[in-house]
C-alpha cells in the first residue's frame, strides 16, 4: 500500500486540506501536494493503462519525465488531456480522469492485448495494415483511430486567456537547482542582468531531498539563503513555474509560465509565453534517473529510487511498506536510508555491481541493518496491478531464480542522464561519458551565435556534474563564463564548498540480468508510454532499422508526450548492443523543443476571439454595420458585400443595388482602395517603369488607368493614376494592394534605382473615399453645392480639388461601373459626415449604398477585369486583350522582357472573352470548357475556364467572362461547360463588354 505518513513532507501545509476527484472518487490531499503525491497518499498507485497493451501502469517518476501518470483534467471550457500528475499542483476541487482505459481503470478490456503481445511486436502496424489495400479505409484505419491517442480531444471552447511577454537579459539561467542558483548568483555579482527560471514551484532542485551540506550548512538552508540574496538584487529576476521550453538561434528562448494552473480561482491569463532574448544562456536543467530494464519493471509499485525519495521527503508519502532497492550505483542507497529512517522496511538492496571494497554508502546500509546483495539483480517482478514480490538472480547469469522476496514496492536506479535537451535544441553536441554511462554536453561543440561564439553553457548535473560538490563549482564556473561572454568583468570570487560523500563508480546495466532470455526480455520495458520492450528494439535492429532515427519510428520508442525522457538512453544502449556497436556510434535521436508539451493557447497568446486577426475598418464601418451590411473580407479589410433590408435575402439586395446604381444613384465606400503618393523629379520615369502604360506624359489634372506587372510579366495590380503636379502622382491600387505595392515600389527604389529621386508615401487611410455613381450622381453633388462638377469643368478622367457641401474634397471623375461616376476623397475624420450628407441629398434622387457584389456585377457588365478574378498570378495583360494599355513607345518597363518570351507570345494562350449561356442561366464560377479528345491522363481536353460569372439584373441574364483557347477568334461559337451533378452549361462566346459598348453613359 502507498499511504501518507504521520510525519514528514517538507513541501506540505498540513493545516490546509484539499479535496479532489479522481475517476469520480472524492479524495483528500494537502496544500503543497502534487496530484501524484496526493494519489499515492490515497493508495491510488494505478494511474493509467499503457498505450498498446493496456497494461496497468503506476507512477514511475516524480517530475517532468513521468510517462504513465497522464490524466484528462477539468471539464468543458477548462478540459485538458495528457496532464502530467507529477507536475500538476493540487488545488481544491481538482477533477481528473485516467486515460486509455475501457470500461474502467481497474478492469480494462483492451488488456487482452498484453496476452497478444507476441502478435503485436515492433512494426506490427506497418506489417499488418499494409495489405490488402482495400481493407485500409474501412477496417484498419477506423480500428487504429479508435485505439490511438491517450487523452480525449477537448470539445468545448477554451475558457481561459493567454498572453505573451517579451523580455531581455544578459544571462538567462534555466533551472533553479543548486547549480543554477550558484550560476545566477555568480553572474549577477558582475552586474549582469540575470533571469533565473525554475519549472517547478520550488527552488533547490534535488538538493534538499538528496541532502549534503554547503559551507557546513544543510543544502535546504543554503538554498533559502541564496534566494533571499538574489531577491534583493535589482539586476536579478526570479521566476518559478516558468519552464525554459526551447532554445533557438541568437539567444532566443521560449519560456512557458503557468500562472493559474495551481490556483484556477485567480483572475488573469492562464499561461504566459515568454519570448526572451538572452546574451548567454546557462542550462542548469539537472539530470533524470534511468529505469533498469528487467522483467516486470512496469508493474505498478516499481518506481525510480529518486522519485520514491521525493514522495517520502517532500510529501510524507510512502510508496510501500516493504521496498526492494535495485541499483547499479550508490545514489539509490539514499532511498534505502530515507525509507529505513522513516520506519519502513527495506528487505534487500540488490546491487548489480561487484566491488572490491565497500563504498561509504554500502557501509552505512550494513550499519543500518539492511541486507545488501552485490552482483545480484531482479529476475522478474511478481504481481499484476501491484508489486507482490521480486525474484532474485545473479546479474551475470540468465535469470535463474535464487530466491523470492516479498515486497510491495521496488525502487530502481540505472544511473543518471543529464537533461541535455535545451543544450541540444540549437545544435549543441554531446559526448559519451564512459564513467557515468551517459551523454553530456561537449563544451567544445556548444550552440554557436552569429560570431561563432558559444551562447549556451551547461551547468551542474545537466553538464554531468552529478555530485553536490561538483555541481556547485560547475554552476559557479558557468555563471562566470556567461557574465564574461556578455561583456561583464568577472572578479575572482570564492565558491561555496559542497560536501557529499564519496561514491563508488556506477556500472552500466542495459539489461537485467545481462543474459536474460527472450521471455524475460519481452517483459522488460524500455518505453512505458509507448509499450516498447527490449525485445522490440532488438527486433528492429534485426530487421535492418539500424539508424537510431529509423529504430525510433519503427518501434515508437521515445515518441509521444514524454519524448523518451526515461527510455532514450536505455533504448539506444539496447540498439547498440543488438548492432554490436557502441553507444556513441549509435548516437541519440534529435532533441526538439518544447522540453515538455506547452499549451496551444500559450502559443496563440492574445490572438483569439475578437483579436484573432486584425480587422481593418473604414471610417464608415459602423454605419454599414447598422444598415444591414453583410461583410466580405478583402485582405484584412471588411467591406459590405450587400446591404440587406428587411424581407430581402442577400441575392435580392445585390440585384436591387445593381439596378439602382444604373437607374438612380449608388454610393460605394471605396476607402479601402490603396492611395500611394509618388513624388520627385524622377517620379514620371519611375512610374513608366512600374506601369505598362506611359505615365510620364499624363497632364496634371488628368487620370489614367494603368496596369502593373511583376518582373515575370504577370499582372499584379491595376488602378487609376492621377497626376497632381509636375513632380507628384497619386496611384490608386486595389483593396489590399496598398501595402504590397508600396513595398514593391520601395524595393525597386531601394535596391535597383537607388539613385532616382523619388519618394513614396502610403496615404490610403488619410482619406475616406466615396464613389457616387449613377445618372443622378451629378445632381447629388450639385445639391451638396460647391465646386463645379459639370462635364465641361470636370471631364471624364479628370480630377479637381474643391469643396462640396462645405467639405474639403478631391473629386476624381473616374468610373468602374460604366455610369456617370465621381470618386470623392475627404479626410477620414469626416468620412462618416460626408457619407451622411450624401445620403441626405440623395434621398430624393433614389440613393442606395451598394456593396462589393454589386460593384462586381457592374464592372462585369462593362467587361472590366478584376485583379484576382481575371488574374491569378499566371495571366499577362495580353491575355486579357489589354494591348491598348501596354505602351509600345517605352524602352522598358517591369515585365516587358518577360512578355516577349516565347511562352508569353504563344498564340495558344487562353484569351479573355465574354460568355453568355444559351439558357440565360449563370455559369458556375471556375467551370472549365471542354473540347474534343482527351489529355494524357484520360481527362477531357480543357479549352477554357470561367473567371467571373454573375446574374446581371440590368440585362436580365447570366453573364460571364472567361479565358478561352483562341477565344477572340471564335466569336459566336458555343462551348460546353460541365457543371456539378451532371449538368452541362452551353455558353456562346461574345464580346466581354455586355453593357453600353460605346461608353455613352459615363460620358455625360
Amino acid at each position, binding site marked *: 500500500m502507498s499511504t501518507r505518513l504521520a510525519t514528514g513532507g517538507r513541501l506540505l501545509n498540513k493545516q490546509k486540506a484539499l479535496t479532489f476527484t479522481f475517476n469520480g472518487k472524492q479524495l483528500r490531499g494537502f496544500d503543497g501536494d502534487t496530484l501524484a503525491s496526493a494519489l499515492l497518499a490515497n493508495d491510488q498507485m494505478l494511474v493509467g493503462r499503457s498505450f498498446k497493451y493496456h497494461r496497468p501502469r503506476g507512477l514511475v517518476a516524480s517530475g517532468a519525465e513521468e510517462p504513465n501518470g497522464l490524466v484528462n483534467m477539468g471539464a468543458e471550457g477548462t478540459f485538458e488531456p495528457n496532464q502530467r500528475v507529477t507536475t500538476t499542483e493540487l488545488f481544491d476541487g481538482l477533477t481528473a480522469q485516467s486515460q486509455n482505459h475501457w470500461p474502467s481503470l481497474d478492469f480494462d478490456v483492451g488488456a487482452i492485448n498484453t496476452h497478444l503481445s507476441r502478435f503485436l511486436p515492433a512494426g506490427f502496424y506497418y506489417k499488418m495494415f499494409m495489405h490488402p489495400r482495400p481493407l485500409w479505409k474501412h477496417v484498419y484505419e477506423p480500428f487504429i483511430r479508435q485505439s490511438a491517442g491517450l487523452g480525449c480531444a477537448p470539445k468545448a471552447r477554451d475558457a481561459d486567456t493567454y498572453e505573451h511577454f517579451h523580455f531581455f537579459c544578459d544571462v538567462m539561467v534555466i533551472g533553479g537547482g543548486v547549480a543554477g542558483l550558484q550560476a545566477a548568483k555568480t553572474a549577477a555579482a558582475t552586474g549582469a542582468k540575470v533571469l533565473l527560471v525554475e519549472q517547478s514551484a520550488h527552488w533547490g532542485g534535488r538538493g534538499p531531498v538528496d541532502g549534503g551540506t554547503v559551507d557546513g550548512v544543510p543544502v535546504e538552508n543554503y538554498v533559502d539563503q541564496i534566494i533571499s540574496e538574489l531577491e534583493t538584487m535589482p539586476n536579478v529576476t526570479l521566476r518559478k513555474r516558468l519552464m525554459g521550453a526551447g532554445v533557438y538561434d541568437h539567444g532566443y528562448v521560449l519560456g512557458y509560465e503557468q500562472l493559474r494552473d495551481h490556483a484556477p480561482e485567480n483572475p488573469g491569463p492562464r499561461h504566459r509565453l515568454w519570448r526572451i532574448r538572452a546574451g548567454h544562456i546557462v542550462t542548469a536543467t539537472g539530470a533524470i534517473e534511468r529505469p533498469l530494464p528487467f522483467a516486470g519493471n512496469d508493474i505498478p509499485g516499481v518506481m525510480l529510487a529518486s522519485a520514491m525519495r521525493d514522495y517520502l521527503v517532500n510529501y510524507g508519502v510512502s510508496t510501500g511498506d516493504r521496498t526492494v532497492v535495485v541499483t547499479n550505483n550508490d545514489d539509490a542507497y539514499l532511498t534505502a536510508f530515507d525509507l529505513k529512517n522513516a520506519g519502513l522496511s527495506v528487505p534487500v538492496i540488490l546491487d548489480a555491481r561487484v566491488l572490491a571494497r565497500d563504498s561509504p554508502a554500502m557501509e552505512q546500509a550494513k550499519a543500518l541493518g539492511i541486507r545488501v546483495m552485490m552482483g545480484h539483480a531482479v529476475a522478474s517482478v511478481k504481481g499484476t496491478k501491484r508489486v507482490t514480490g521480486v525474484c532474485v538472480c545473479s546479474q551475470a547469469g540468465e535469470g535463474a531464480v535464487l530466491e523470492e522476496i516479498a515486497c510491495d514496492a521496488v525502487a530502481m536506479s540505472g544511473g543518471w542522464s543529464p537533461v541535455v535537451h535545451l543544450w541540444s535544441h540549437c545544435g549543441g553536441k554531446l559526448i559519451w561519458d564512459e564513467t557515468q554511462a551517459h551523454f553530456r554536453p561537449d563544451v567544445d561543440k556548444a550552440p554557436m551565435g552569429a560570431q561563432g561564439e558559444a551562447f549556451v553553457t551547461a551547468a551542474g548535473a545537466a553538464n554531468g556534474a552529478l555530485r553536490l560538490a561538483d555541481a556547485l563549482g560547475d554552476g559557479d564556473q558557468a555563471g562566470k563564463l556567461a557574465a564574461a561572454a556578455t561583456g561583464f568583468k568577472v572578479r575572482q570570487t570564492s565558491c561555496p564548498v559542497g560536501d557529499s560523500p564519496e561514491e563508488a563508480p556506477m556500472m552500466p546495466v542495459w539489461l537485467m540480468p545481462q543474459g536474460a532470455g527472450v521471455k524475460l526480455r519481452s517483459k522488460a520495458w524500455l518505453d512505458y508510454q509507448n509499450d516498447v520492450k527490449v525485445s522490440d528494439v532488438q527486433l528492429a535492429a534485426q530487421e535492418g532499422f539500424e539508424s537510431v532515427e529509423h529504430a525510433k519510428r519503427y518501434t515508437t520508442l521515445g515518441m509521444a508526450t514524454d519524448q523518451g525522457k526515461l527510455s532514450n538512453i536505455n533504448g539506444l544502449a539496447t540498439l547498440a548492443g543488438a548492432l554490436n556497436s557502441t553507444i556513441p556510434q549509435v548516437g541519440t535521436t534529435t532533441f526538439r523543443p518544447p522540453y515538455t508539451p506547452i499549451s496551444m493557447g500559450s502559443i496563440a497568446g492574445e490572438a483569439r476571439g475578437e483579436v484573432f*486577426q486584425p480587422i481593418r475598418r473604414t471610417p464608415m464601418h459602423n454605419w454599414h454595420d447598422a444598415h444591414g451590411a453583410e461583410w466580405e473580407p478583402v485582405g484584412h479589410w471588411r467591406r459590405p458585400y450587400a446591404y440587406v433590408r428587411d424581407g430581402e435575402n442577400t441575392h435580392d439586395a445585390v440585384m436591387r443595388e445593381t439596378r439602382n446604381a444604373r437607374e438612380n444613384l449608388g454610393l460605394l465606400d471605396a476607402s479601402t482602395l490603396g492611395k500611394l503618393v509618388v513624388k520627385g523629379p524622377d517620379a514620371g520615369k519611375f512610374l513608366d517603369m512600374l506601369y505598362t502604360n506611359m505615365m510620364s506624359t499624363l497632364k496634371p489634372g488628368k487620370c489614367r488607368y494603368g496596369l502593373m506587372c511583376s518582373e515575370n510579366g504577370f499582372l499584379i495590380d491595376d488602378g487609376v493614376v492621377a497626376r497632381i503636379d509636375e513632380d507628384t502622382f497619386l496611384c490608386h491600387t486595389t483593396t489590399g494592394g496598398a501595402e504590397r505595392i508600396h513595398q514593391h515600389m520601395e524595393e525597386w527604389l531601394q535596391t535597383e534605382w537607388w539613385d532616382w529621386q523619388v519618394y513614396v508615401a502610403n496615404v490610403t487611410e*488619410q482619406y475616406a473615399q466615396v464613389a457616387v455613381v449613377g445618372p443622378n450622381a451629378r445632381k447629388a453633388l450639385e445639391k451638396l453645392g460647391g465646386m463645379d462638377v459639370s462635364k465641361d469643368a470636370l471631364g471624364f478622367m479628370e480630377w479637381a480639388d474643391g469643396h462640396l457641401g462645405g*467639405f*474639403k474634397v478631391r473629386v476624381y471623375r473616374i468610373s468602374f461601373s460604366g455610369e456617370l461616376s465621381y470618386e470623392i476623397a475627404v479626410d477620414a475624420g*469626416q468620412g462618416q*459626415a460626408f457619407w451622411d450628407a450624401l445620403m441626405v441629398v440623395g434621398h430624393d434622387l433614389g440613393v442606395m449604398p451598394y456593396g462589393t457584389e454589386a460593384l462586381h456585377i457592374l464592372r462585369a457588365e462593362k467587361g472590366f477585369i478584376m485583379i484576382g478574378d481575371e488574374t491569378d498570378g499566371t495571366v499577362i495583360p495580353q491575355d486579357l486583350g489589354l494591348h491598348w494599355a501596354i505602351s509600345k513607345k517605352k524602352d522598358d518597363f517591369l515585365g516587358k522582357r518577360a512578355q516577349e518570351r516565347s511562352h508569353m507570345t504563344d498564340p495558344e494562350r487562353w484569351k479573355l472573352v465574354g460568355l453568355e449561356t444559351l439558357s440565360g442561366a449563370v455559369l458556375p464560377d471556375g467551370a472549365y470548357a471542354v473540347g474534343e479528345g482527351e489529355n494524357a491522363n484520360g481527362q477531357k481536353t480543357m479549352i477554357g475556364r470561367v473567371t467571373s460569372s454573375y446574374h446581371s439584373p440590368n440585362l436580365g441574364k447570366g453573364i460571364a467572362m472567361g479565358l478561352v483557347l483562341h477565344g477572340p477568334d471564335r466569336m459566336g461559337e458555343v462551348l460546353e461547360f460541365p457543371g456539378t451533378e451532371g449538368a452541362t452549361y452551353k455558353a456562346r462566346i461574345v464580346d466581354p463588354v455586355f453593357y453600353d459598348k460605346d461608353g455613352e453613359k459615363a460620358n455625360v
Partner: protein
Amino acid sequence: MSEPVTALGGASADNGIATLAEASLQGMISLRGDLTASAVKKAVTSASGAAMPEQGRVTAEGDRALCWMSPDELLLLCPYDAVGETLDRMHKALAKSHALAVNVSDARAMFRVSGARAREVMAKLSPVDLAPDQFTPGMFRRTRLAQVPAAFWMPEEEAFHIICFRSQAQYVFDVLTVAAQPGSSVGVYQE
C-alpha cells in the same frame, strides 16, 4: 464641413492593470527626405520648433515634436488645426529640395497607455526591451503591436503614446484591453 472625429470617438478603459484611452485629434505630417540636408533640417526644425531627433528618438517643443521614423523619414507632430499652415511652411521651405511632406493626421489613431504597469502591457505586445533602464522618455520606437505596425514613445514615466493605422484602431484598443486584463501583472520591472 463638420467636426472631424477620431477613429473610436475617444474610447477608454480603466478596469485593468493600466489605463487606456484613445487620444484626441493629433496633427501628423510625414516627411521623407535627406535628413542630413540642411534645407530639410531647417524646414522641419523651424516648422516644429524642436531639434532634429537622433536615430530612435523623439524631440518635443511645446505641443510639437519630431519623431525619427527611418534614415529618411520623420514624423512631425503638431496641433490638428495647425497642420495646413505647418505643411504650407514646410512646402515653402522645401521648394528647392527633393522631399515629400504629407498630412497623415487622419490616417492614424493614437492611444495613451498609462499607469505603473504600462510598461508590462506594452512588453506583452511589442518585441521591445521595455525595462526602465532600456526604454526611457525621449526614445521613439517604430515596431509592431501584436499583429499590426505601430510606433510609440513615452511622453513621461509611466505613460506611452501609441500611433497605429486608423483602420486598425479597434484592433489595437482590443489587444491593449486583453494585455491589460485584471490579474495579468507580470511584476518584472523594478518599481
